């Protein structure tokens, strides 16, 4: 099994790409850190009793006044930066990945179907897409948040803010997939092999899945990577505008938003540590995405 992976083309290419290896290592480390945050972080930023205001604003260990207990310092509440970031990455990646998956499934599904069937179905889907596009992500987030607030009691809503935000982000991303998928279907549909498959009476679902989808994997993978990164950044932006997550669920975006207040105050680590971390995470994802696109492209082999 291992041997098969080891000798596969993709892995062969992977071994030859230092950038991809570094990116994969970074992403894997962050992912592990995120998954195992509750076991490796020294304090839990959700648990008010696990940190103390007395430890607030400690700089990183190598600076004057830093403490070896908090290697990257503490924030205004006395929370250990490393722990906050691990938990933050956990939340951000969860939101990003789930939102990206929802957006992909929804967008590709609708886009393929719209392109394949055309006509009225196409028109309806594309007009829905227009509506979606006309509502910038920020507004979608406000809308979903608003609907949730109207439907759910406020005590429940607080626990569902992550879900609400995820859905909002997913909804603001699916159109990219749909339009790309649809545009490609238009092109692919008229090609002989698809026509042949259709004439041979293959079921539409099969035609789309087996003939059209693989041919648009390239652009889709690009969008998926860009969108995973976008989803994570979008969460940060929404939190910056004050319509994301509350301060007591520290995603990376919330940490950066809190840190923005300390941009000039001298407590640089509160902003730059999570920002740097976010940048490393997003850059790694993007590099990996580029690599995957090349690796899975049959024409490259």
């Amino acid at each position, binding site marked *: 099994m291992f041997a098969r992976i080891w000798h596969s083309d993709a892995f062969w290419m992977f071994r030859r790409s230092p*950038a991809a290896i570094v990116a994969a290592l970074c992403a894997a480390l962050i992912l592990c850190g995120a998954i195992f945050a509750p076991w490796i972080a020294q304090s839990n930023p959700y648990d008010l009793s696990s940190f103390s205001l007395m430890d607030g604003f400690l700089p990183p260990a190598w600076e004057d006044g830093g403490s070896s207990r908090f290697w990257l310092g503490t924030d205004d509440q006395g929370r250990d930066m490393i722990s906050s970031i691990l938990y933050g990455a956990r939340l951000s990646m969860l939101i990003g990945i789930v939102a990206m998956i929802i957006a992909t499934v929804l967008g590709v599904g609708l886009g393929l179907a719209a392109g394949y069937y055309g006509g009225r179905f196409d*028109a309806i889907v594309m*007009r829905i897409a*227009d*509506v979606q*596009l*006309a*509502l*910038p*992500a*920020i*507004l979608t987030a*406000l*809308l979903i*948040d*608003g*609907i949730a*607030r*109207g439907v759910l009691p406020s005590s429940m809503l607080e626990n569902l803010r992550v879900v609400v935000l995820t859905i909002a982000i997913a909804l603001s991303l699916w*159109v*990219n997939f749909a*339009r*790309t998928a649809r*545009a490609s279907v*238009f*092109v692919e549909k*008229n090609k002989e092999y698809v026509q042949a498959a259709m004439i041979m009476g293959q079921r539409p679902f099969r035609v789309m899945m087996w003939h059209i989808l693989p041919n648009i994997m*390239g*652009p889709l993978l*690009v969008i998926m990577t*860009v969108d995973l*990164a976008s989803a994570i*950044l979008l969460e*940060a*932006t929404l939190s*910056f*505008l004050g319509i994301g997550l509350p301060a007591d669920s520290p995603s990376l*975006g919330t940490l*950066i938003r809190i840190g*923005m207040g300390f*941009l*000039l105050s001298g407590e640089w680590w509160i902003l730059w540590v999570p*920002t740097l971390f*976010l*940048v490393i*995470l*997003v*850059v790694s994802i*993007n*590099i990996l995405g*580029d690599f995957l*696109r090349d690796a899975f*492209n049959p*024409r*490259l082999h």
Partner: protein
Amino acid sequence: MVYLILKRLLQSFFVMLAVAFLAFSLFRFVGDPVSQMTGVETSVEDRERLRDELGLNDPFIFQFARFTGDLVQGDFGFSYRTREPVGEMIAKRLPATLELGTFALVISLVVGIPAGIYTALRPRGFVSQSILLVTLVGVSIPTFVIGIILIFLFGVQLAWLPTFGRNGTVDLGGWSTSFLTLDGWRSLILPAMTLGVYQLTLTMRLVRAQMMEVLRSDYIRFATARGVPYRQLYFKHALANTMVPVITIIGLQFGGVVAFSIVTESVFQWPGMGLLFLESIRFVDIPVMGVYLVVIAFFFVIVNLVVDMLYVAIDPRLRVKEAA
């Protein structure tokens, strides 16, 4: 073709109605306008009276019908906050957003397309790798952080460019433009760069991906084999074939530009529609939010229509199909 346009316009009308409906239904969740309109000492009774006067106690569907009814008649209503006519407010802010968005888009295309082509043609070169890395980092920093960094670098430390606002505008018959004065350009640079970075990366990556795809396709290989000169090969055959998705993306990007301009405008205190919208959220200024959304929807509908028309123009196969 005329039939197609008419059909799309009719559909567009329903799109806008849907946007208006969605937009309007979210307003009652944004907050309570009356609390934002009155002072601390205003009595409960006076607040209730104001609520009545604004029609906020009417059933939702009545409010929506009144809003769209007025809208269709060209009556955009008055802002709760400043009592100004909303149409006038939006019209005054529109040039700022459009000029910012256009300039940002131009930056992203002028830099993004050549960079995308270059990195596709020399994928392993040092320059290509550097460009890719720089844009990757650029796109990985949240827009608001980039904006603040630019402000502090070029506005405060180097003091080359203004830190906020839109100076040096010239009024051209109701359209205030930044393009005619040096001050205007100076104010425009930082926000447009902030807004353009993300779009630039997206454009570049897309052009690159598409170009590489096309370059590997059989007909390019045949052309290479036939000895078609490289220049002609790349810029005529290959580029033409990358344009379909690129046009889609430009269309889509205009959406991105408008969405992200909300953030950029807020960071740079750029007096555009996005800033107006954020303020109206803060003060629960329902008429302003409503009209803003409908205007944006109108915008998108037009852009999408143009994009779809271009598809047909570029890809002859689609033209045949639509005619049939």
